[in-house]
């Protein structure tokens, strides 16, 4: 693709042409070295899309079996009813042995196939440690340029939580009544405190009330112990009871998402920038390891450098390319 073709393609993504969005997602998933430059160029062209700067990236996470797909489906439909367009990235684990994956989220979702304001893409984790897929960061940016709200749905409790913080503006943790493990993780500070907590499958009043109370208790313990990120003391994470199958609590969830997005307004740029720094450095260290990081001055230096360069207009992908080149050059000198 030529430069002008990329610009053209980016235009079509921004106007939410499904074919173009799909092609752009295929491109950012492409791991061949010869595709990297085009990926970087595409993302640069999408960086300042009006939807991207004004939109909302929501991360939905929680242990398997709590009904995240059904909740995503209910949330997306409710957002559509409010006139907002929605892009979804559903991330599923891959089979370590074969590298293959079964992306089953679509099976639990019911959408109008003729709706142009809704787009769902499934991604496999490709065996990466950390949970989030290789292309998740880029995919969120492609969808973010095309749709008002981007939902990233991912399974797991633990490492992937920390990952999703770097991708999403608002992290929603979904549990179901009786999720003892999650409460323990929260209390012990193993898990960062999410921005919003949802107790799904709250079809039965009594169970749901107890689950909400348990969760509130765990949050208090965690906060008292100084656990969690603690980066945003002014925000008190709301706890919402939903039943995705019955459709209850979904409107409250949207209101809470909107409240958090408003709360972020002045700090959103900084939060997204932190995510980008992390992404660039993750990419670099995955490629060149400890040695790469230490050769270029250690993680602190790199972090400061990334902050400066990204503020100066670099994209995480192009920054990673530059760092790689510098590192490879130093290898040439020592040899």
């Amino acid at each position, binding site marked *: 693709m030529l430069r002008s073709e990329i610009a053209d393609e980016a235009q079509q993504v921004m106007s939410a042409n499904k074919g173009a969005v799909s092609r752009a997602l295929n491109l950012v998933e492409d791991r061949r070295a010869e595709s990297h430059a085009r990926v970087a160029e595409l993302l640069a062209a999408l960086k300042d899309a009006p939807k991207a700067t004004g939109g909302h990236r929501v991360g939905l996470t929680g242990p398997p079996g709590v009904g995240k797909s059904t909740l995503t489906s209910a949330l997306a439909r409710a957002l559509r009813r409010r006139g907002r367009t929605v892009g979804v990235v559903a991330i599923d684990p891959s089979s370590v042995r074969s*590298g293959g994956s079964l992306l089953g989220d679509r099976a639990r979702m019911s959408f109008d196939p003729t709706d142009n304001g809704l787009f769902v893409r*499934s991604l496999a984790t490709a065996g990466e440690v950390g949970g989030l897929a290789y292309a998740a960061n880029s995919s969120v940016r492609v969808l973010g340029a095309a749709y008002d709200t981007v939902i990233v749905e991912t399974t797991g409790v633990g490492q992937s939580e920390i990952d999703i913080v770097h991708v999403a503006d608002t992290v929603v943790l979904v549990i179901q009544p009786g999720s003892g493990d999650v409460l323990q993780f929260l209390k012990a500070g193993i898990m960062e405190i999410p921005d919003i907590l949802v107790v799904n499958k709250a079809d039965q009043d009594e169970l749901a009330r107890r689950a909400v109370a348990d969760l509130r208790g765990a949050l208090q313990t965690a906060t008292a112990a100084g656990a969690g990120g603690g980066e945003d003391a002014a925000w008190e994470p709301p706890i919402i009871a939903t039943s995705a199958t019955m459709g209850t609590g979904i409107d409250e969830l949207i209101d809470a998402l909107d409240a958090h997005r408003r709360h972020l307004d002045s700090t959103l740029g900084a939060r997204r920038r932190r995510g980008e720094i992390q992404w660039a450095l993750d990419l670099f260290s995955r490629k060149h390891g400890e040695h790469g990081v230490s050769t270029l001055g250690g993680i602190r230096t790199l972090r400061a450098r990334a902050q400066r360069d990204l503020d100066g207009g670099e994209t995480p992908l192009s920054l990673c390319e530059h760092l790689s080149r510098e590192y490879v050059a130093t290898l040439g000198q020592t040899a």
Partner: protein
Amino acid sequence: MAQDGKRERDRPWIMRTYSGHSTAAASNELYRTNLAKGQTGLSVAFDLPTQTGYDADDPLARGEVGKVGVPISHIGDMQALFDGIPLDQMNTSMTINATAVWLLSLYIATAEDQGVDPHVLRGTTQNDIIKEYLSRGTHIFPPAASMRLITDLITYTVDEVPKWNPINICSYHLQEAGATPTQELAYALVTAIGVLDAVKATGRIPESEFGKVVGRISFFVNAGIRFVEELCKMRAFVQLWDKVTRERYGVTDPKQRRFRYGVQVNSLGLTEQQPENNVIRIVLEMLAVTLSKDARARAIQLPAWNEALGLPRPWDQQWSLRAQQILAYESDLLEYADLFKGSEVVEARTQELVDSAWEEVQEVLKRGGAVEAVESGYIKQKLVESNAARLRAIEAGEQVVVGVNKYIESAPSPLTENLDEAILTVDPKVDADQRAALSRWKEERDTEAVDKALRELQRVAKSDENMMPASIAAAHAGVTTGEWANLLRDVWGEYRAPTGVAGASVKTPAGAANAETVQRLRDRLHALEASMGRRPKLLVGKPGLDGHSNGAEQIAIKARDVGFDVVYEGIRVSPEQIVASALEEGVHLIGLSILSGSHLALVPEVLQRLREAGLGDVPVVAGGIIPEADAERLRQEGIAAVYTPKDFELDNIMSDLIDLVDRRHAAE
């Protein structure tokens, strides 16, 4: 005891044939012929739109009307179906689940119009929606609403239609979905427990009357080719049900604790290769459910020898009926007491099954019971795993299937010489005729009465009153199946059940006969991934209303095992949805699975829509019960390959799929 040759004979079981197709009038003619041939009861097969609550004029009913059963939209259709068949003398079994309340209402209303008191009606509504989530796939509503419909029907009939079997708890479909005997026993029992607990929770049945409800619960069971084990399974069922009804529900009357069951023997094991062998399989399987007097089926329906090829003709069904008649009337089976009482071998195997099944029952109850274990995907995943293990054993030759993986040489068969005439084809005009008849019905009925009946239905649906009386009134008023179901969809919502495939752990063991082949496939796929930059992505779609998902599930799991990224959408997706998914997911290949016989309508539509969406170059393959003449037509329309039940070697299919992706990539 009587002298030789003059022993007293037991009354034989009820003999039925699962049948119905095209239209109510055509099915009525078939029923009358079958009764004249000595059939002693009716078993109504409804088409998929009727089972899933759509009228013939609904876009989702496209290609499905009259295919796997008879379309029944309103009381006029029901009257035509039983024209000249007095309902007070009939024993009618209806394979109907999500819409069971509605179809029974139509049946009761038809009886009332015939001047028959509902109190004398005999028959069965399947009404087991739990297993629909697991294997058959004709559910509509979320589990809580489904459980309400089940209990409404049971608590209504116990007094108003007291000779009716309000529910047939089905282990049949669990075996078709791959269940082992232990799983079949356990999951049927937890379903029964879930239903009885729910009936109890309604508070509509006084404690003293509860035994009556327990006594009306019947089962619908499967029998496979391992017929000794199956025979023991039936005996295990009898023991376990006695235990559950006594210990959990305190039923003291032994008659109310009897395990009453009907049977359709195994269709899963019927083969497309050398199909005449299926007759022998069917007879052996029938023995499993008849030989034990203490655990004998009360009603039997047998599949036809050519079911893996397409819809059976009347002659094919007659052959199966004759098999039953020969066993019941010619042989001396019914002259003896239980043959196995005191047999060490049979009793030991039975005990093993009782113990292992009881353990699994406890496991499911620990997880909160049948409904919870369905919603969490626990049971479904177990079934998918068992089925994958079964298929792998057949593919590896560890489990012998004569004519399929052993003794495959055959002289030309005169039975299948003219294959396309060896099955029944439904006139494609049926669809349009039914739509026209429906629109006439809607014009001629009293609109005001219909609106009033629908408003009342809506009020009741939102309350906790029983749905039956309002449904019977709606039946009399001329309401249609689609109107009844759509109204409830609005009130209760629709439900998409767990597919069980994502978490299923099925691996080719290192020592397996095909381990090397699988490794070669993985290597090829990895090489392809490196050269394409993305991992090859396959979309598995099930268009239409058919819910038989075994094939789609096993292809999905196998494809993952060799390294594809697989998007599986579950059952009942429209051609529009498949194309939207293909576009959004950026897939390299599409596989369609259709078992209802509606492939000629659905596949070309998917191809056409793909072209319109600019995806005309994405290769599409199809699998299902597809006669060769149809397969040829589909290939001409642009399908890359067609797979039928004889293609049991999944490794070969995978190799083809990789070829297709490879060829398309090379052409880019």
